[in-house]
């Protein structure tokens, strides 16, 4: 039995190791970059691994721990190898420096990660000079390539990668003039707002956006304005004389290969619907990590991908034996979106909310009937929250049920 894992980031490595440990004969890990780790090697800050390894690690350390696990498990690793096609019969076409390979797998686990939304996705008007980077690209150039990419910087979006890059740029000697966030609340984790912006006196402009990029050859300035209902509030435009604009305006699953398989793509995740084992509607095809939906912490990614890796070597259920689950109201995203029935292992449901909420109650319902309920002191869009179903709650769910996840402020 061959388990092919596409992507050697934290999700792919964790899934590959779990598959091997669960008894897969052969596990092949295919990574497009020159090293394993995905984005971890560029995340040189700490805060990783507290749940998964029980210690505080930097990104490169976490990657190295996982890489050691991979190496010790007897997993075959292909580097500089990019899957260029995925077929319904679980054949992968891989381009690598020694040729084109056709991999006929029994199981495919897509751990393809995410890409950053570029300027064009949000259509910022103005000129098209050099000096506009997405936050992750900037982070790679600063931390891996060791380059100075800007001296005076403005940032749009307050996602975690952006916040960490703002701090990093400051430590590298750049002047970060400010961070604008279109929403009335920050996009990143509370700890990052404190540790990356407040601690360095970087101003955060909520309900603001960049309305124009100026500069012929290199960015010369950006116009920033307060926004209300999608419109500029007159008189609030400010000009920031910067040479660099960093964008941290969201991640999208890199789901192009998954789309080639003809799987249904959910509009709210941008990827295929998965069950609690991260299996798609095509048996033997799994999607884990940011490729399935955007996670908050790498620990959660590794943990959930391990579930998939282990499950991938076992046959669990008939595909028809499942219920569906969808997010409602202030719930933005839910994972899984399908629930396999008849497995003696009740699922864990992950979700994110659309806006910050105080004390609230989250309910899993079916036709108005509540199956499970959990209270929270607060929920934030940046954080992924979870409900673990109890066996008796899980056993109530019938094949064909359409479940809903809702949140009610208390």
């Amino acid at each position: 039995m061959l388990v092919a894992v596409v992507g050697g980031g934290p999700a792919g490595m964790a899934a590959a190791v779990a598959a091997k440990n669960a008894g897969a004969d052969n596990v092949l890990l295919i990574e497009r970059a020159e090293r394993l780790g995905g984005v971890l090697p560029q995340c040189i800050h700490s805060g990783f691994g507290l749940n998964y390894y029980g210690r505080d690690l930097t990104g490169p350390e976490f990657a190295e721990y996982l890489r050691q696990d991979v190496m010790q498990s007897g997993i075959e690793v292909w580097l500089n190898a990019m899957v260029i096609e995925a077929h319904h019969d679980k054949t992968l076409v891989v381009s690598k420096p020694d040729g084109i390979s056709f991999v006929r797998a029994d199981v495919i686990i897509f751990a393809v990660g995410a890409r950053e939304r570029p300027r064009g996705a949000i259509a910022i008007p103005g000129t098209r000079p050099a000096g506009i980077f997405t936050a992750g690209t900037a982070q790679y150039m600063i931390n891996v390539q060791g380059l100075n990419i800007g001296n005076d910087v403005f940032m749009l979006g307050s996602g975690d990668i952006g916040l960490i890059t703002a701090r990093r740029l400051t430590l590298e000697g750049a002047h970060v003039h400010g961070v604008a966030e279109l929403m009335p609340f920050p996009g990143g984790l509370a700890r990052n707002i404190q540790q990356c912006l407040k601690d360095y006196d970087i101003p955060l402009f909520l309900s603001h956006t960049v309305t124009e990029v100026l500069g012929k050859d290199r960015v010369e300035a950006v116009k920033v304005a307060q926004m209300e209902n999608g419109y500029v509030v007159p008189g609030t435009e400010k000009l920031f004389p910067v040479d660099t604009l960093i964008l941290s305006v969201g991640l999208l699953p890199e789901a192009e290969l998954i789309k080639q398989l003809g799987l249904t793509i959910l509009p709210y995740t941008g990827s295929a619907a998965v069950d609690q084992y991260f299996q798609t509607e095509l048996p033997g095809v799994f999607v884990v990590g940011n490729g399935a939906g955007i996670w908050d912490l790498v620990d959660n990614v590794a943990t959930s991908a391990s579930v998939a890796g282990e499950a991938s070597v076992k046959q669990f259920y008939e595909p028809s034996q499942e219920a569906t689950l969808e997010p409602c109201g202030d719930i933005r995203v839910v994972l899984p979106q399908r629930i396999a029935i008849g497995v003696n292992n009740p699922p864990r449901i992950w979700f994110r909310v659309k806006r910050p909420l105080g004390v609230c109650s989250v309910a899993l319902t079916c036709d108005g009937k509540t199956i499970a309920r959990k209270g929270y002191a607060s929920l934030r869009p940046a954080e992924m929250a979870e409900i673990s179903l109890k066996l008796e709650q899980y056993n109530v769910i019938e094949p064909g049920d359409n479940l809903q996840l809702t949140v009610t402020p208390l």
Partner: protein
Amino acid sequence: MAASGGTRSELDQIAKNDNPINCDVLIIGAGIVGAAAFRELCRYKLNVLLVDANHDVGGDASKANSAILHGGFDPNPGTLMSKLNHDGLALWFAWSQELSVDVEWTGSLVLAFNESEINEITRLYENGKSVKIPVKFLGRDETLKREPVVNPEVKASLYAPVSGIIDPFQAVVALVGNGLKNGGRIRLDTRVEEISKRSDGIYVRTSSGLIRTKVVINAAGLYADQIMRMAGENWFSIHPRRGQYMILDKNVGNLVRHVIFRAPTSIGKGILVSRTTHGNLLIGPTAEDLDKPDKRTTAEGLATVLESAKALVPFPYERFTIAQYAGLRAIGSIDDFVVAHSRTMEGLINAAGIKSPGLTAAPGIAKELCNLVSALVPLEEKANFDPYFELPPILRELPYKYREELIKGNAAFGHMVCRCELVSEGEIENALKMEPPARDLDGIKRRVRATAGRCQGGFCMPRIIDIMRKELNLPYENITKFGNKSNVIYGDNRGNE
């Protein structure tokens, strides 16, 4: 060399002191018109030099336009524009094959939504008939049958089967590449500053040296009137008309089969919805008359593009947009192309006011320019002229067998760098080595598509920079997006390696 100012006497001084570069024909402007003229003139036993102020070929308008081969029913019959549109369209059939330029004859539909637009497409129908272009008038049902996604409010349309889409930048690269292959020369980053006629030729002072030539072809696009004024020719002026566009993800590239236009208005052919030869969807352009060049996109302009495209083909375009840009059309003070000998300086030939359908007409303009050149210098065809040009291989278009062979020859062809457009390191190396070569990130993007995809270089741009550094032996600080001062990186913090 003095960078600016300059009187006649200064120029004489320089001519004495500097050894000028000599040529028979100097072409100013490496846009589609200059490139087509370059290719055609390199057929002959002439010393041809192509100059451009920019860091790469492709001019300004030639790399930011609708990428359409127009059917030729739009210009008024009897105009030079009508004739050259017609000639150019016919020549693109042959040229696209000789030069391996991506052209697809998709056909176009001009939609009419009301009485006055029906009158307008009726006029276009008659135009087309009078210049012998195949056009058909379609009613509502036929229109919707041919293109089911158009706004069902449509009343009628004009169908022109012989029109299509082209990769305009690739066309420029292929034309210039073919000219270079046949002995032509090129100088980029070369801005023309002064032109003067002397007994032994025309002297052209540029930002990178003095040039002495027998013939000058002015294909300076938006700046053609400035070149004319340098030759004392003041009857013609140009102003920029900005067109803003949005490019959408390849996932929705097949929304339409044809190029979809709206019935034209007095200031242009209206907003179109079209697939590009790369498979993206393109919507735009606006038509904004400006006093001076300004390639900014604006919130209002992009909103107009969206609104107008939705009126043609209802679709949530904003969810799939990956890039926006603006191009500037050169709008002359007369409503026709100027392709003629200068009125004031013998030896200068102007190709000015080349707005839409300039891209379509370019081969026709080039042939016309050759005719005009023949009145000044004899044209004798080279025995060994090679009409063919092939771009370096694009791996995603090749069968696996050929990819394997390429990879065996150079492992870099197996190493994929750009995920979105599936571009290998070997293709990027080729882009840097080919003639004319890519010299910056945009040059690579336009030649081989890396960074042109849905992530716009988020993954591959830093890796391309490493490849450029290695292949061109450039320090990081000298790598630019499009030449000039568009440096991407300010410094290398790694210290000594």
